[in-house]
């Protein structure tokens, strides 16, 4: 038991919390950016603008079918070879945003598609323009349908930030590793503690989702 007590010293916990803070920072920034970009890309795919929608679809298909870790490696180790050097933080955010935007774009597109065509016809036949119909009728309903898949994607994103440990981003998992690499008996206590931290963050997200669903469902 004393190993746990020692492992969970105030100084270690504070160090873990610093890591958690970075995890949260990267997560929030990536969620916000990828949601905005994913929304735009998803709408572009849905409305079928000549060439543009096809090009966007092609890019999304490529990105969605690559491992996130490869994208992170490419951003941090590959891009400098091409003359673009980034901090681990910026590289992690960039890689996550690229990957998640592609994932979210598909969720957005299928969410819009799940709104029955009659909704659009009802709106158009009342004299609303296409854009007005999308804004007032289609998108609000689509967003409501998207809440569950969006949130599970956000949860994946939070967990996927741990991949950035490999490019020495000082996030939660990385900080845990630093602690137990100095004393390997701390390994299990550290794993347990960060498991709890990831769980709490992600579980809170799904609680928010349930709330939103109840409110708009």
């Amino acid at each position, binding site marked *: 038991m004393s190993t746990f007590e020692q492992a969970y010293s105030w100084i270690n916990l504070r160090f873990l919390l610093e890591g958690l803070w970075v995890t949260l920072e990267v997560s929030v920034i990536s969620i916000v950016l990828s949601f905005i970009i994913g929304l735009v890309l998803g709408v572009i795919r849905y409305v079928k603008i000549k060439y543009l929608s096809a090009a966007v679809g092609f890019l999304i298909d490529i990105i969605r079918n690559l491992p996130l870790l490869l994208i992170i490696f490419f951003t941090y180790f590959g891009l400098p070879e091409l003359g673009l050097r980034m901090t681990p933080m910026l590289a992690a955010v960039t890689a996550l945003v690229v990957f998640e935007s592609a994932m979210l774009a598909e969720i957005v597109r299928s969410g819009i598609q799940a709104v029955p065509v009659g909704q659009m*016809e009802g709106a158009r036949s*009342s004299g*609303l323009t296409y854009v007005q119909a999308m804004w007032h009728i289609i998108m609000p309903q689509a967003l409501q349908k998207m809440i569950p898949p969006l949130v599970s994607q956000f949860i994946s994103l939070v967990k996927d930030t741990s991949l950035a440990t490999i490019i020495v981003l000082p996030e939660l998992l990385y900080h845990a590793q630093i602690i137990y690499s100095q004393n390997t008996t701390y390994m299990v206590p550290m794993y347990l503690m960060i498991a709890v931290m990831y769980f709490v963050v992600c579980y809170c997200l799904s609680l928010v989702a349930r709330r939103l669903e109840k409110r708009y469902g």
Partner: protein
Amino acid sequence: MSMIEFKNVDKYYGNFHALKNINLKVEKGEVVVLIGPSGSGKSTLIRTINGLEDISNGQLIVNNYDLSDKKTDMNKIRKDVGMVFQHFNLYENKTVLENIMLAPRIVLHKDEAENKKYALELLEMVGLSSKAESYPRMLSGGQKQRVAIARSLAMQPKCILFDEPTSALDPEMIDDVLDVMKTVAERGITMVVVTHEMGFAREVGNRIVFLADGEILEDDDTETFFKNPKEERARQFLSKIITHK
């Protein structure tokens, strides 16, 4: 000028000839009922009138706008030509009152207080004042359809298209909807109605247009059509639909 005029209109879906050389005039204030077997093109025809379907050939004039001209702004036509659908198509994310007020607000920029007053009047007319704050999912089919009619009336249209408005309803709901449609007809609004309700057609329709296989086979005033249909296919159709009732 007629409210609606089809001149030699054709419509193709790929190779399928859905509407064949349609010539049809609907005068202002007239109630024209389109009947015919399923797949005859009734719905396609009515949906061309507000541009939900485009036409392949010929000329279609609605409320002095030429729909065959690609430059015509469809939204202008739709301001004056409402539509009521088989499956209601009420906005699921809006209350009943909001469903009625939305288009007058953003298309006509109607004054908010006036808009609401008129919407409430319409709800009273269709007998659903108590449902103003309900969402469509809380209503029965018949109630939804009455709201849909109120919604299209809110735009103060010159013409309303009804595409099988009672086909998705339970039998006991149908009369309520037909009653509201009679009120609409009494207001002098031009109506084009696709329906299988022969009682309604007979009572309210000024003219019956019988379609089969994308062609207008008969276009007569209501009396003549029901008493003495000229076409064999119309006769067969009538005898079938009446024995089924």
